[in-house]
């Protein structure tokens, strides 16, 4: 079985996002960019399936700027076999919406015919948490989100999902679209020789036009600002006063 893993290039999780003073977005120039952490987990899961003999080939795909090649190379160095870059943007400030991404991924899926697509549950930049669900809808494949454990049994998946109440176990038929949650696995560190080898792995470069998909956005960002600073509240004199305020003013204690 072939597995398709979409990966997105985002601001590294350890870098503090800084809003631009003209409110047009978040500063992305000269900022360390990395593979979206949830996507790294998705790649790791696919590799483990390959190592376990469940999967035969891993194709990674990214939609974005030319530099997303670096992100794809990271996935290749981890152990993916082949990469597709869909160049859909000229500047880092242009982000492609999940709907357009899902449409492109649906086309790639038709072409590549994988048995499953594993995505991150959300991208840590725009936090939409949408692409996997949309792709599943467009393909009519099983929708399996927030996976924290996956086992493959013939054409059936047994999956544990992370939901608000705890964990939920489900089964799903292949083909399926899966989104990876944090606890699915812990990704490996990349080996230096594998980075070298990754440079020689095949990478196709495409455009949205190649797939006949219109990527123009449905949403317009009118402003991006810093969250308002939390204002200091009041000082209370005693525990009694504190308990009283929590009950009667804030209403958070009953």
């Amino acid at each position, binding site marked *: 079985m072939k597995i398709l893993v979409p990966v997105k290039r985002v601001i*590294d999780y*350890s*870098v*503090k996002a*800084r809003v631009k*003073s003209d409110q047009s977005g978040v*500063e992305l120039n*000269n*900022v*360390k960019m*990395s593979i979206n952490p949830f996507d790294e987990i998705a790649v790791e899961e696919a590799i483990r399936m390959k190592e376990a003999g469940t999967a035969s080939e891993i194709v990674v795909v990214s939609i974005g700027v030319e530099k997303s090649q670096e992100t794809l190379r990271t996935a290749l160095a981890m152990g993916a076999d082949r990469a597709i870059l869909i160049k859909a943007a000229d500047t880092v400030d242009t982000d492609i919406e999940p709907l357009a991404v899902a449409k492109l991924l649906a086309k790639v899926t038709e072409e590549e015919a994988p048995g499953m697509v594993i995505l991150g549950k959300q991208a840590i930049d725009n936090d939409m948490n949408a692409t996997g669900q949309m792709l599943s809808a467009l393909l009519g494949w099983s929708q399996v989100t927030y996976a924290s454990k996956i086992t493959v049994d013939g054409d059936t998946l047994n999956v544990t999902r992370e939901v608000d109440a705890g964990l939920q176990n489900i089964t799903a038929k292949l083909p399926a679209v899966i989104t990876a949650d944090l606890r699915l696995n*812990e*990704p*490996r*560190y*990349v*080996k*230096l*020789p594998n*980075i*070298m080898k990754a440079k020689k792995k095949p990478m196709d470069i495409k455009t949205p036009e190649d797939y006949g998909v219109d990527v123009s956005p449905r949403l317009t960002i009118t402003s991006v600002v810093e969250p308002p600073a939390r204002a200091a509240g009041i000082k209370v004199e005693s525990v009694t006063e504190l308990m009283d305020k929590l009950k009667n003013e804030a209403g958070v204690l009953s």
Partner: protein
Amino acid sequence: MEEIERDVMEFDVLIVGGGPSGLSAAIRLMQLANENEQEITVCLVEKGSEIGAHILSGAILEPTALNELIPDWQEKGAPLNTPVSSEEIMFLSETGSLKTPNAFLPPAMHNEGNYIISLGNFCRWLGEQAEELGVDVYPGFTAANVLYNEDGSVKGVQTGDMGVQRDGTHGPQFEPGMELHAKQTFFAEGCRGHLGKELKERFNLEADSQTQTYGIGIKELWEVKPENHQPGLVVHTAGWPLSTDTYGGSFLYHLEDNQVAVGFVVGLDYKNPYLSPFEEFQRYKTHPKIRDTFEGARRISYGARALNEGGIQCLPKLTFPGGVMVGCEAGTLNMPKIKGTHTAMKSGMLAAEAAFEAIQSNFDVVELVEYTNRFHHSWVRTELDAARNVRPSFKWGLWLGTLYTGIDQILFRGKAPWTLKHAHADHETLLTKDQATKIDYPKPDGVLTFDKLSSVFLSSTNHEEDQPIHLTLKDDSVPVAINLAKYDGPEARFCPAGVYEYVADENKKDGSQRLQINAQNCVHCKTCDIKDPTQNINWVTPQGGDGPNYPNM
């Protein structure tokens, strides 16, 4: 410990460190190889998560070395966007300031023709040039240990293990580091490289040079109001808030996009254990001549880095069997100019040329003495010779030092027929706590002045928590028994990232204290390795990719 099987990779030249010196060396090597149609393999490892992530500098770039290395840098899009347009030097008193007329400035301090840059961005660009030429550039990998051949020559380095847990055991993600072997290894770790420290000792490289001296530079990047921004303006100060017996001063550079780089350098030969370079910097910003620039401004980034102040008289022997030192690893910074980038680049280029010649003659040269020859016949040597007496003269204090600098640099143009000595190694200069007076620093206001932790936040530093602490102690009892007892725990003050804290010892309910090391906060400035009065702290590389993630510092 069990033996680990390590993979080996072989290269012609291996470069440790992706700063200006290492990158220039890599580029020069590949240029020569391409010109001569000779295939060579060059590998560069960098501990930062990407090239530039650990680079912090002023910075004013003197483009001499760049003009030689990549003459068409303009077409190639080098990020040199802001030529220096005007400059000021001020002596500050608590409330006032005295501007030095430009005519009285030593020639070395003029900046016409130079550019205000972000050295981090410049290195990112150099990194791209190197990769395009075919250098294997590996950010996120540390050189953790030097490897030696049986004959004692340097064989290469071992990259750091990944996924080692706090207690030293291997975690589930454990990935052993590998051995990188090369005919020549260039050490380009910058100021106070941790492998360089070992090499200097092992090969006795400092036998004929004086003890190196250092400074700590702390820097912030601000976005100021357009009306307070003058692209190209350079302001240096000396004096307040430092006492006159402490060497140091500030820099304030107006870059592009309403950004201002402001920083403060304190000579690490300072004496008072209560001095906090961080606090001095915060206080400096409140000076009436300085604070207006930051009115309504926003702080974007923060970081710190040590720099060499020793000059040519402290330069170690540059070569040893199997390897060389380039750039600030050796100590090529020009102190009166406060510039080390162009000299670091040039030293890397010279080493590259010497190495390529050796490779070409197909002769396995063990020690690249030709590099030393080239170095001593280059303009770097001439420049550093001229600068040699400035920094040591400040052991006499600010005013005499300044007077001396005037005489040395203007009258003799640096060619005075004597060479001054540095008095002591920096870790030897601290007074004990009963000899020193406490310094009462003002509380930060959260607008112009800040505490350490909110500053460290802006360095975007991070370290995987579950790994051995990379600030190693030779003796665990020394911090409390000596550093605290004698010097009142100076590491809590000289570390600009709040790594060292003396806290109540929760196991002994008698009010005694213990040293808490918050290794996660570290910004890799190396100050503790230099200034620890007992030399008990040994900075080693943490997991690759950890440490600050500076944007355009």
